[in-house]
């Protein structure tokens, strides 16, 4: 009987932790969503530059792809 009480308690704790983790994940994603939609609307290029500054490091894709070479050529 004591063993069953321990198991019931453990299950109870696990279920509550799982439910709280799901809710916490929802809050994390909601925060990211609010940040994404609150960002002022600018032209797409300035938008991605802002993100790069916020990210604080160089992006691996900064070099132009072959498909975008004609666009890169204009700015070079």
């Amino acid at each position: 009987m004591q063993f069953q009480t321990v198991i019931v308690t453990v299950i109870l704790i696990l279920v509550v932790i799982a439910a709280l983790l799901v809710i916490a994940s929802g809050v994390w994603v909601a925060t990211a969503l609010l940040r994404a939609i609150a960002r002022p609307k600018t032209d797409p290029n300035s938008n991605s530059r802002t993100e790069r500054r916020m990210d604080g490091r160089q992006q691996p894709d900064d070099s132009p792809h072959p498909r975008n070479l004609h666009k890169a050529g204009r700015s070079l």
Partner: protein
Amino acid sequence: MNPALSAIVVFAYLAALVFVALRARVARDFDDFSVARRTLPLALIFGSIAATYVGPGFSIGFVGRGFQTGFLFLCAGSAYAVQNILVGLLVAPRLRELKNCCTLGDAIGQKYGWSAQIIAGIISLGLCTGFSAVMIKAGGVVLTDTFGLPPWLSVSLIAVITTSYTAFGGLRASVITDAFHFALFAALLPIVLICAMFFHLKGGPSTFFNEAVAATSYGLKSTSPIQLAGLAVSFLLGETLIPPYANLALASRTSKVSKSGFIIAGIFSIVWFAVMTATGVTARGIVPSNTPEDHVLIELIRTLMPVGGYSLLLVALISIVLSSLDSLLNAGAIVFTEDIIKPLTSLSDRTALLIGRRATVLIAAVAAVSAIWIQSIIDGLLICYGIWAPAILPALIIGLWVRRPRPLAGILSMGVGTITALLFGFVLPASKQIPGIIPALGAALAAYLIGHRFGKIKAGA
């Protein structure tokens, strides 16, 4: 239930959805439409992956299975978590590192040539359309059951709402609205479990324990080991890197974000399955034992919640459907443009964007028409799962790891995998005991090895 209050809650939800979709802004070029300029951060990548895989099967379906077989399905479902973690560790970063790559077909094209890319594109497009039809059907069922609308009207509403923001906003709109949907159902559905277990279940956690033991024992007795193995394989491979997930892997900011997004989504899936199966087990002490599996969650919510709460939960169920549907429509449109049209003809960026938008509408229309004839949501999903893994995965995964893949190997593997899966899915119904995914995967691997042995290396490789 008060229909007026339900209608107000649903309209408030739709207004919020439209606001969020408008803030996501219109895609300006095909790069924006297909990979959102590769600027998506970790939280949004994770939210979108989780919102896409948590469809009707992983919510309503899991609650129903928990109700019938206890925590047995949680064990089978853990294979799904393993799959996501393995994809995060081994495949997603490699995919993200490929240059000039918008789709899985692009990756396959880079490894095996343009003809393999077109074959991969046709398979991916068929799968996205099939999955979309199942999702539209599921959303239609929720609307019809709640408001008493005719099925054709419910199906049309679901298709039109989702298509409107996906066609204009592309991947960014899909990801942003996925985050909105995810936040909504992740906050609401666990509350059902907590309310049910602590306030409505007579005997509380102690009864929960007894119900869990009884249901899981019944599940173990009524499921053969081969069926369990088949389930585990389906969870492990059936949805691996389907086009919406592949697009997210390619659209993340860095390969590290891509890797972490899949790993966190894998860990989250276990927690989610635990909450859903526990909700099903709890429902055993609350709803009548003869309630059909697919109605357990709705019946539980109807019993527990006041009218406003019921409407809110209804909105959460619609969110679950829409978040999967928008990703599938967007992925199908990108695949059509990038893998089927682009290899055949040269397109300007503006034309590609226009084709992508029109393809979104066309796929939604075909899926909506097909949805009316779909008999069972789960059967529809299982057919799609059974085809995808053998058709694409051997060629894709081996191609990413082998130094000089042979085009013949990729084409043979995709062709043989697809045909074998279709044979086991439609022509050989007597083979239900052995899930078709296992022999089809074996055939695809064997075909790959034969093609690798006898094929020539791609020119220029």
